[in-house]
C-alpha cells in the first residue's frame, strides 16, 4: 500500500492525464474502505472524460448529490494518509450542477511553422499574420532569455524560477531548453495563451522548433496541430546548410559563435524532417518567399 515508487509512477500517470471534465457513468459509496483509506465512507465514480477515456476516481464531498450523467470537474485533493504520516494526493472530481461547455471544439487547431534557424520562419509568420489579419494570432513564447534588440517575435520574458514553477503546475504544456556556451535559456508555450486565442475564435500560430512541436503534439493531440515544415533551398543537405549560413550572416542578429551553434541545431532540424516525418503535414521549400507564404496560407485556410 505505502509504496513510494508506485506513488512516483502514479504522479507521472496523472501528469499525462490532462485535467479534464467528465460525466458520471456510475457511482457508489464505499462504506468499508480498504487498508490505508481511513474509516469514513467516500464516493467513487466511474467517469467518462472529455477525450473519451474512462477513469475511476473519488468524488469530493460537495453539496450536490451525484447522479449518473452529472458533470464533474477535476481537483487535486488529499486521498489518504500513509502509515508514516505523509499525505497522498490524487485526482478527485467535484459534481457541478450546470453543464460545462468544453473550452475548445474539435475544429480548433494550431498552425505550427517549423524549420531550421534562418529558413525564414519569422518572415513567413509575420506575412501570414498580415494575410490573416483579424483571424490569426501568434502564440507568445515564454522564455528565460534576456530581452534583446532586434527581437521580432512576441516573447514573454520570465525568470528561471517562474518558468520552472509554470512547468511544475502544468501551465506550460510544451517546453525546451537550449543550453549553450553563451547562455542557458528555456522556451515554452502556455496552454492559457492558446486557449485565449481559440476563445477569441482565432487561429493560433506558433513559430517553433522540433522539441516544442513534439510537446505541443503530445499536449494537444496530433490532429489539433497543422504542421508545416520549412526547408531551405538546395538539392543536398550541404547546400541547404550553406544557404542557411548565408541568411544568418545577412540577418546580422547573432555573433559568429552563435551562428555556428545555430547551424549545428539546423543540421539536426534538417535530419528531423526525415526522422520525425509523422510530425509534419506539409514540407515546403522556401526558395521564393511569396510562393512559400501563399502555400502556407492556402494550407491553413483549407486545412488540408
Amino acid at each position, binding site marked *: *500500500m505505502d509504496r513510494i515508487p*508506485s506513488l512516483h*509512477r*502514479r504522479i507521472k*500517470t496523472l501528469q499525462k492525464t490532462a485535467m479534464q471534465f467528465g460525466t458520471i*457513468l*456510475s*457511482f*457508489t*459509496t*464505499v*462504506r*468499508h*474502505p*480498504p*487498508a*490505508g*483509506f481511513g474509516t469514513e465512507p*467516500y464516493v*467513487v465514480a*466511474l467517469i467518462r472524460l472529455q477525450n473519451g*477515456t*474512462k*477513469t*475511476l*476516481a*473519488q468524488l469530493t464531498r460537495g453539496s450536490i448529490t451525484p447522479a*449518473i450523467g452529472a458533470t464533474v470537474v477535476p481537483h487535486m485533493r488529499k*486521498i*489518504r494518509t500513509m502509515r508514516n504520516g505523509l499525505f497522498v494526493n*490524487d485526482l478527485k472530481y467535484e459534481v457541478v450542477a450546470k453543464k460545462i461547455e468544453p473550452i475548445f471544439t474539435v475544429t480548433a487547431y494550431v498552425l505550427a511553422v517549423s524549420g531550421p534557424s534562418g529558413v525564414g520562419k519569422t518572415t513567413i509568420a509575420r506575412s501570414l499574420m498580415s494575410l490573416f489579419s483579424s483571424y490569426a494570432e501568434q502564440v507568445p513564447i515564454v522564455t528565460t532569455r534576456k530581452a534583446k534588440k532586434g527581437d521580432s517575435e512576441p516573447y514573454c520574458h520570465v525568470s528561471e524560477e517562474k518558468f520552472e514553477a509554470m512547468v511544475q503546475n502544468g501551465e506550460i504544456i510544451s517546453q525546451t531548453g537550449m543550453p549553450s556556451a553563451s547562455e542557458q535559456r528555456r522556451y515554452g508555450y502556455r496552454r492559457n495563451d492558446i486557449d485565449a486565442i481559440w476563445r477569441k475564435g482565432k487561429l493560433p500560430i506558433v513559430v517553433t522548433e522540433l522539441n516544442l512541436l513534439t510537446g505541443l503534439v503530445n499536449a494537444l493531440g496530433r490532429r489539433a496541430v497543422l504542421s508545416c515544415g520549412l526547408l531551405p533551398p538546395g538539392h543536398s543537405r550541404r547546400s541547404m546548410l550553406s544557404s542557411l549560413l548565408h541568411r544568418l550572416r545577412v540577418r546580422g542578429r547573432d555573433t559568429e559563435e552563435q551562428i555556428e551553434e545555430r547551424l549545428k541545431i539546423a543540421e539536426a532540424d534538417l535530419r528531423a524532417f526525415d526522422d520525425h516525418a509523422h510530425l509534419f503535414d506539409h514540407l515546403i521549400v522556401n526558395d521564393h518567399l511569396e510562393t512559400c507564404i501563399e502555400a502556407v496560407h492556402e494550407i491553413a485556410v483549407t486545412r488540408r
Partner: protein
Amino acid sequence: MRETVYVLGGGQTRFGELWGKSLSDLIREAVDAAIMNTNILPTDIDMVIIGNMVGGETAEQAHLGTFASSLLPHHPPALRVEAACASGGLAIHTACAFLESGKAETILVIGAEKLTDVAGETVTSALMHAGDAEKDGPSGLTFPSIFALTAAAYMHKYGLTREDLSLVSECSHRAAIKNPYAQFRKEISAAAISKSPLVADPLRLLDCSPISDGAAAVILSTRKESSVHIAASQLANESLSLIDRESLTSFVSTRTAFSSALKEANWNKNDIDAVELHDCFSIASLIHLEDFGFAQEGEAIRLFRDDETEATGSLPINCSGGLKACGHPIGATGVKQVLDCWKQLTMQAPNQVVNAKRMMAHNLGGVGATCTVHLLESI
C-alpha cells in the same frame, strides 16, 4: 474435448469462518475426503493442481503446489494456479488441458482459501488485487464497490428495484438450508435483505457473498472411468479494469466462454438442466443469466420472481446455495462448483434436481475479467 475426462468424485470441507482450521488443515481435509469418496489409491494420482488466490497475504503460505503434493505419499508433480475468484475454475481447466494432452492421467484438483485469519480491511485490500492495481486501486475502490458500480448502472439502465434484487439472495439462502457444507443454513427473507446494512450503495451486506474459509477437491481422470465426464472446459478473458469496458452490464468473458463451451460439447443452451453460477454479488447472477441468453437484457429478475430458479423450476440455479449462502472461499469456489455438479449428476445433491443429466459450472474472476465454464454430463 480430445479425451474423455471423467470426474471420479471429490470432497470438501464445510465453508465458513473456520477459526480452528489453518489453510493446511483445510487442504488436508478436502484431499482426504476426495480420496475417500472416490475409489482410488492415492498413488493413482499422477499430478496435483491447486487453485488459490491470496494464500501469501492471508495465510503466509505460498508454494502451495508442493504443499499439496506433500500430502500424498509419492509426491506427484504439482502446480498452483491463480485467476482471482476463478482460481478454482482455472485449476479444473488446467487439469483438463493436462489430461487432454496426455501429460497426466489422473489429477487431483484442489481449490482452497483461508481468509479469516486476518482483519477485514486486510482481506478487502488483498481481494482488491484482483482488480487493476494502477487503474482501480488508487481511487480506494473495493471489490464490493466495483460490483456496486455495475449494480448502479444496471438499476439505472433497466429500472431494477431494490425489492427485486433481494429475491436473488433469498433464493440462494433457501437452497443452502439443506446443504451440510454451507456457511449460512438459514432462510432470510427478501425484506430482511433489503434492510441489511449498506456495504457499497446500492449493494447491501446480504447482496454480497461472505468472507469464508474452505477447501474442495475433485479427482479427474482419463484412465479410470465413472458415470460423469466433462463435456467442455473453456476459459475466456476480458480487460482487467472496468474503465476499459464497453458495457457495465454485461461480461464479454462469460459470453465467450459460454458460447465456446456449448460449441465444444455440441449442446444447445436449453440442454442444460441446472447451473452452478458465480453469484459473488446478487447483481452478478442477473448479469450472468442475461449473458448466457437465458433471459433478455434487463429481464433476468423474472426467473427469480417466477421461482424458475428453484430446484423444481425450469432453470435451477445454485442448488448448493451458491457463493452467497454456501460461502465463497475464493480459490475453492470453482472446484466446489464442479463437485456440486458431480453430486447432482450422481443423484446425491442436497437439493436434487430430478433427472439432472447436464450441468454447468460457471466461475468468474475479478469483475468478469476471467471466466471459466465447465459443462458436465452423466452417461
